[in-house]
C-alpha cells in the first residue's frame, strides 16, 4: 500500500515536470464568437436541457434558479462542491466575460487558467454549439444574484493538484461523438452534449474516465448504494414512446415513479418541447447492445 502511494506521488511529480506542455490549459479562440448575440429566451432551453441548475442550485432550496451552489459530489477522490455561478459580482460569476464563461463550460479552464475537476461535466459540454453557449450566457445574466460564498472542495493529495487534471484531460477529453448521428443530430446533441446522460449511465475506468466501450451500460451509483440502470437494448426493453413518456412524466412503463438524481433530469425534460424528448428516445433506442 505504501509503495503504491509513493508511486502515485512520483507519477504526480513526473507528470507535473515533464508533462507541463500536456497539462497547460487549452483555451478557446475568442475570435470564434465574433458577431454572436445571445438570445436569453433560447438560452433558457439550453440551460434546462444541460441541467445546470440541478447541480448549482442550493441543496434543499425550492428556488432552483438561485445558483448558490453547494451540492456535493462524493467520489473516490474526495468530495467536490458545486460553486456559486449566479450573476453576483463577487460571490458568483457576475464579473466574468463571455470568453471566461466559454473557457469554463467548454474547456474546463478557469479565468485564472486553472483546470476544473471533471465533476463539472465540461467533458460533455465541450461539444456545445457557439450560438447555444451565447444564448446560455445571455439567459444566466437574467437570474437573481446570490451572495453566498462557494464552498472549498475536500479532495486529497495528489488529486488536489489541479495541474494533474490537465494530464487527465489530455488522456480523456475529446470532442468526438461516441455514436453515429444517423438522422438524429438533435437527439445525439441532447444526450451526449447538453444533458450528459452518459456521465451517470456509463461506467468509469479506474481513473474516473467514462468507459466508452460500455457506453450507457449502467454504472454503480457514485453516491452510495445501488446501481444506475443500463440504457442499452440488451437491458432496457422499453419502446421509444415509453422513454419519451418517462422523460415527460417520470413514470416507467409499469408506472413505478422515477427517483434519485434522475428525478431532476425528468423535471428538466418535462419542461422541454415534446420533439426533444422524442429525439432523446430515438437516440436511446438506437444504442448498440453490449455483449458481455
Amino acid at each position: 500500500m505504501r509503495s503504491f502511494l509513493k508511486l502515485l506521488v512520483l507519477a504526480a511529480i513526473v507528470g507535473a515536470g515533464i508533462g507541463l506542455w500536456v497539462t497547460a490549459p487549452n483555451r478557446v479562440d475568442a475570435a470564434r464568437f465574433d458577431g454572436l448575440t445571445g438570445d436569453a429566451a433560447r438560452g433558457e432551453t439550453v440551460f434546462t436541457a444541460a441541467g445546470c441548475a440541478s447541480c448549482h442550485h442550493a441543496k434543499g432550496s425550492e428556488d432552483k434558479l438561485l445558483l448558490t451552489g453547494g451540492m456535493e459530489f462524493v467520489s473516490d477522490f474526495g468530495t467536490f462542491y458545486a460553486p456559486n455561478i449566479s450573476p453576483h459580482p463577487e460571490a458568483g460569476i457576475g464579473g466574468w466575460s463571455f470568453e471566461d464563461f466559454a473557457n469554463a463550460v467548454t474547456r474546463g479552464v478557469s479565468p485564472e487558467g486553472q483546470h476544473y475537476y471533471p465533476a463539472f461535466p465540461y467533458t460533455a459540454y465541450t461539444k456545445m454549439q457557439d450560438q447555444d453557449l451565447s444564448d446560455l450566457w445571455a439567459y444566466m445574466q437574467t437570474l437573481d444574484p446570490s451572495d453566498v460564498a462557494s464552498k472549498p472542495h475536500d479532495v486529497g493529495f495528489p488529486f488536489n493538484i489541479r495541474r494533474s487534471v490537465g494530464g487527465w484531460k489530455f488522456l480523456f477529453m475529446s470532442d468526438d461523438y461516441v455514436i453515429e448521428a444517423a438522422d438524429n443530430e438533435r437527439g445525439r446533441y441532447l444526450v451526449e452534449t447538453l444533458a450528459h446522460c452518459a456521465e451517470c449511465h456509463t461506467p468509469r475506468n479506474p481513473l474516473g474516465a467514462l468507459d466508452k466501450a460500455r457506453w450507457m451500460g449502467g454504472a454503480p451509483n457514485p453516491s452510495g448504494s445501488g446501481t444506475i440502470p443500463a440504457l442499452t437494448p440488451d437491458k432496457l426493453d422499453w419502446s421509444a414512446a415509453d422513454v419519451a413518456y418517462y422523460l415527460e412524466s417520470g413514470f416507467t412503463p409499469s408506472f413505478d415513479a422515477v427517483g434519485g438524481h434522475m428525478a431532476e433530469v425528468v423535471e428538466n425534460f418535462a419542461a422541454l418541447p415534446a420533439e426533444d424528448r422524442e429525439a432523446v428516445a430515438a437516440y436511446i433506442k438506437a444504442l448498440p447492445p453490449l455483449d458481455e
Partner: protein
Amino acid sequence: MKTPFAALALLAVLGTPALAQDLPQPVKARQGQFNIMALNLGVLGGMARGTVEYDAEAAQAAADSLVAVSSLSQGAMWPDGTDDGSIAGTRAKADIWGNMDDFTSKWADFGEAATAMAAAAGTGRDALGPNMGALGNACKACHDTYRAPE
C-alpha cells in the same frame, strides 16, 4: 367505502411468490401498497396516454383505490432498522427516519393529489393528464429524496 378493496388487494399482492422473500412483514406491506399504487396509476396513465380507451367507471375505481391507499396508516410500515443500510431487499433510505415529518408530509401530498384525481377521473379523458402530472410530481418528490436506486 373502497378501503376493504384496497386491504384485500394488499393481501393478494403480499401473497404472490415474487414478494415472498425473507423480508420483515412491514417492508413487504409497504412495498405491496406501492405496487397497488403503480397498478392503479397504470390504468389511469394508459387512458391518459391513449394506449387504452377511456372508461369512466374504471378510471374512477382506479382513482378511488389510490385515495384508499393514501388513507392507510403508515406508522406500522416504517419501523426503525428497516432502511437500506440495515437490511437487504429495501430501497428505503435511512434519511426517512431522520426526517419523518417531511416524509409524512410528502405522503400527505400524494393523498391530496389522489383526492384531486378522484374528483376528476370520472369526468372525461382530458381531466386525466393534468392530474397524472400532479400525482407524478408527488411520487417523484418523495423518491427523489427517500428512495435509493435498485
